[in-house]
């Protein structure tokens, strides 16, 4: 059983004055403009917490995050390719707590009672909220591919959440002999970071090219096409010759079984592929707390009203980032940050008794095919008739661009990383 201790200090001034649960309006009238609890200090959650405080410092904001330091998936492929050290993709919560007065609770959010407006932590502590923001990112669908469970991931990493998994994959790549085979199994849509698997093999190819030039890379794909496909394939050929082989769904690319001990995978039609280093990017769903809160659909993702990112299923819970259904916006860090800002504006407006503003988002996913070869896909999004739609224009980098254009996009990719890390966590590169 859970002990219902309350974290008084995290509730700020309101907690002292009120049993605010039953009297939220009174709580506001007495000084605090409202209480927000945010779960997840990644791209979406950290941005939402910061931008609520930027818009109205009188709102009490508590951030619940499992880890004391955040490592980004963006640029983790550069680490895998030996182009960055791991700490360079790590970020602290110092700006949020020090400059913005966000209360940080390092712990695991376990359960939500949407009627009572409470969040229960694994420690047993209970937090009350007027508005809850969930940005838990993804969870792996363990067992969706036969043989791929948590124990298997200790031998065959997914490295689709940055941390120990990413380091494990890097160690295996370093230990691999020249002439070895690296296999990446890519999932069907929707999943976190549509161009991510293809950037990953690119930067591993770059590492192999200089360190293990006789090695081979195979992508076994559960799809027949992928993000920025033409640009990736042209870049692979230009930089790595025939080192990278892509096997589409129609060519029996879908992996149905993993033998982690043997580092083997089996595809739909019974072909066995043996790898020296194996990376399974498995099917995914919204982080577990979204299920616990009752905001997910049959697909495992959270449908939201795009104007506010409030759940369509449970009031006063806003779901942003990878966990939400925001298509055609991709599940990217850029999108999560942009959604965090829109949700923050909507929450601040709601506390003030105002209508939310017209939302607007952009997304750009930069990918590096080599250290000096960048490509991107860029779009602006708006809401029409209650749905997110792609605004005019946008699209991918030109197919016929010269080397100088690719080089500049690689430089801007780094500029993007510095800017979004600064905007989200206050990190100064």
């Amino acid at each position: 059983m859970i002990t219902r201790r309350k974290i008084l200090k995290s509730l700020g001034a309101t907690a002292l004055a009120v049993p605010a649960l039953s009297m939220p309006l009174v709580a506001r009238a007495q000084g605090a403009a409202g209480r927000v609890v945010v779960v997840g200090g990644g791209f979406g959650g950290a941005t939402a917490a910061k931008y609520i405080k930027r818009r109205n410092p009188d709102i009490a904001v508590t951030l619940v995050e499992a880890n004391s330091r955040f490592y980004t998936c963006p640029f983790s492929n550069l680490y895998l390719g030996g182009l960055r050290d791991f700490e360079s993709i790590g970020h602290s919560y110092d700006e949020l707590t020090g400059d913005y007065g966000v209360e940080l609770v390092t712990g695991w959010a376990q359960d939500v009672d949407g009627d009572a407006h409470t969040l229960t932590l694994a420690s047993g502590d209970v937090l009350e909220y007027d508005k809850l923001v969930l940005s838990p990112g993804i969870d792996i669908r363990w067992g969706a591919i036969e043989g791929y469970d948590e124990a298997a991931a200790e031998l065959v990493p997914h490295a689709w959440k940055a941390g120990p998994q990413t380091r494990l994959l890097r160690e295996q790549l370093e230990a691999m002999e020249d002439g070895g085979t690296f296999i990446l199994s890519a999932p069907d849509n929707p999943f976190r970071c549509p161009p991510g698997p293809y950037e990953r093999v690119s930067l591993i190819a770059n590492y192999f090219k200089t360190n293990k030039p006789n090695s081979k890379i195979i992508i076994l794909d559960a799809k027949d096409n992928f993000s920025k496909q033409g640009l990736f394939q042209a870049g692979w050929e230009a930089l790595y010759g025939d080192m990278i082989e892509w096997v589409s769904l129609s060519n029996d690319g879908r992996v149905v079984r993993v033998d982690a001990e043997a580092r083997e995978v089996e595809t739909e039609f019974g072909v066995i592929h043996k790898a020296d280093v194996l990376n399974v990017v498995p099917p995914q769903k919204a982080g577990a707390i979204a299920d616990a809160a009752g905001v997910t659909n049959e697909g495992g993702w959270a449908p939201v009203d795009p104007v506010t990112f409030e759940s369509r299923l449970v009031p006063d819970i806003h779901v942003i980032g990878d966990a939400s259904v925001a298509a055609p916006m991709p599940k990217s860090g850029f999108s999560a940050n942009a959604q965090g800002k829109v949700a923050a504006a909507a929450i601040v407006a709601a506390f003030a008794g105002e209508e939310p503003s017209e939302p607007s988002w952009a997304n750009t996913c930069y990918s590096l095919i080599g250290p000096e070869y960048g490509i991107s896909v860029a779009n602006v999004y708006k809401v029409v008739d209650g749905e997110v739609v792609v605004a005019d224009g946008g699209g991918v980098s030109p197919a016929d661009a010269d080397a100088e254009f690719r080089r500049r996009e690689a430089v801007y990719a780094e500029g993007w990383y510095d800017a979004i890390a600064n905007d989200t966590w206050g990190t100064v590169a």
Partner: protein
Amino acid sequence: MRTQPIMAALFAASVIGFGLAGAVKADSDITVLAGTCYNCHGTEGRSPGSIPSIAGQPYAVLLAQLQAFKAGEARNATVMSRLATGYTDEELEALARYFSEQ
């Protein structure tokens, strides 16, 4: 950009999201529109990295640059020509005004 909270609206807000889902304020908040520019140009347009800062540039310069991006006439554009097409002329004017004032 904020209007004064009114009591009736405050009560409406406590049940918001369902009845009012989809409703938006008539005059939209420029900081919402500008927020996505921060992801590349830095918070409020002050860049910490290789993408140019746009804060505090003259309005006319910013507007001319954005219009050139949208028209596909900016030499050396890599990504802005693809993004600027997503905004109306009025939105570009509002963005140029906002960043010129930062």
